[in-house]
């Protein structure tokens, strides 16, 4: 979910992570997931569309390399569970949820690019509950920018970034965007 939907032009204020820093953060998160869960038994990763799903695939590759064992990955679209659907128009584009395994009794790690208000994660938790009854759900994010509006906290964080509500954190990834980087943008006052 984009952070601040707006037609006001934004301009880049600072680069938070370059491609190498993104890679290192994901490698560290992969190690932390394996350590905390004592391996990969009964573990699966669920990425929130679009960029969380890309990150989930990358973290899964790292975990497979560390543990020499493949780990299941799924993509979750939370659009239909958004709490602002009755307020926004036109309705946002829905992408496919692709989880080809039963999540019941699995330990899931939910993965997204940016943790902000927590509303996306709330929607994702509701969506997952409709798909089955996982044993537990943990949360991994590349960027935690604060300003939570719901009681939600990440278990694994790539980078904590203090931001103002008016700023926007843009995560760009090779697959959809051509390059890996995280930038912070502010409203163009001019």
């Amino acid at each position: 979910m984009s952070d601040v939907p707006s037609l006001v032009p934004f301009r880049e204020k600072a680069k938070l992570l370059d491609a190498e820093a993104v890679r290192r953060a994901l490698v560290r998160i992969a190690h932390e997931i394996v350590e905390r869960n004592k391996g990969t038994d009964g573990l699966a990763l669920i990425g929130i569309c679009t960029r969380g799903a890309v990150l989930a695939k990358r973290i899964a590759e790292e975990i497979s390399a560390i543990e020499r064992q493949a780990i299941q990955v799924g993509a979750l679209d939370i659009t239909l569970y958004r709490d602002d659907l009755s307020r926004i128009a036109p309705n946002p584009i829905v992408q496919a949820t692709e989880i080809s395994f039963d999540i019941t009794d699995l330990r899931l790690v939910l993965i997204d690019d940016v943790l902000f208000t927590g509303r996306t994660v709330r929607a994702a938790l509701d969506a997952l509950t409709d798909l089955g009854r996982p044993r537990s759900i943990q949360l991994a994010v590349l960027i935690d920018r604060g300003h939570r509006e719901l009681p939600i906290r990440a278990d694994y964080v790539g980078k904590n970034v203090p931001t103002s509500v008016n700023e926007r954190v843009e995560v760009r990834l090779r697959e959809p965007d051509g390059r890996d980087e995280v930038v912070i943008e502010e409203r163009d006052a001019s």
Partner: protein
Amino acid sequence: MSDAVITKDAPATAQWTKKDLLGLRELSAEEIRLLLTTAESFREISLRPIKKVPALRGKTIVNLFFEPSTRTRTSFELAAKRLSADLINVSASTSSIAKGETILDTIKNLEAMKVDIVVIRHAVAGVPHAIARHACASVVNAGDGSHEHPTQALLDLMTIQEKKGQIQGLRVSIIGDIAHSRVARSNIWGLTKLGASVMVCGPPTLVPPQIAECGVRVSWDVREAIRDADVLMLLRIQHERQEAALVPSLREYRQRYGIDTERLKDAKPGVLIMHPGPINRGVELDSAVADGPHSVILDQVTNGLAVRMATLYHVSGAAKLEGMEP
């Protein structure tokens, strides 16, 4: 498995801004693709243990059917329920329309009860369009006379895309009662907009020559329609819409235009057999073909549900856009 995720299809860039879905003639290729992409995303919901998402929670939908229907009505009903909307079925025979109330009055009364979407089927062409101009609620055309049946064409397009990978460049033959068929007309608009080459075929009494103006080729010879076709779309001979005897007999129709395994020998190996239902078995389509390996008739029904979910989802969003939400 993990390769199957995400960026496979670039998300459609178009936005849906129309309050109503009245026909495919009014839609751009981009808008049609957006509905198809959304429908593909919705297909997975029907495979879940809990086949329901909260997207249209609190919305009210009325099915207003002035003509008999099983497939379309139940499909819209299930679509509404899987999106968590509330749905009411009104059929003409049991409503005040039987007492002489005008359709517009019926709609205005339904709106007074804060209905969000009206799904309407009527024997007269243009009725959904007329209602859409006067109603604040979204109007979805579920078939108007011989004019359009947009969700049927969308589910046909979705099925072709699913089975053939694309629509651009395919040859599609529509065979049967073209003159009375709203399914044919909506499909002609949709298929030609997405780049397919369309041929219509049937007895001269059931194929109006002016149909060529829609950008299709016309043939009266079913062998020509079968040869080179990637998709054969059979239509039902509609007894109820024929005042005069336009076909000498069903037996003769079957002999000249019916599809059986013998005729299918001249078709391409991967040809798709489609039919909007209900099938007159042994007339336009032999049972061996209808239930055979080329038939995707039941896939059409499955996709119909997803297409109707996508339609309800998008018109409901656009109604907010116009600030016309009742």
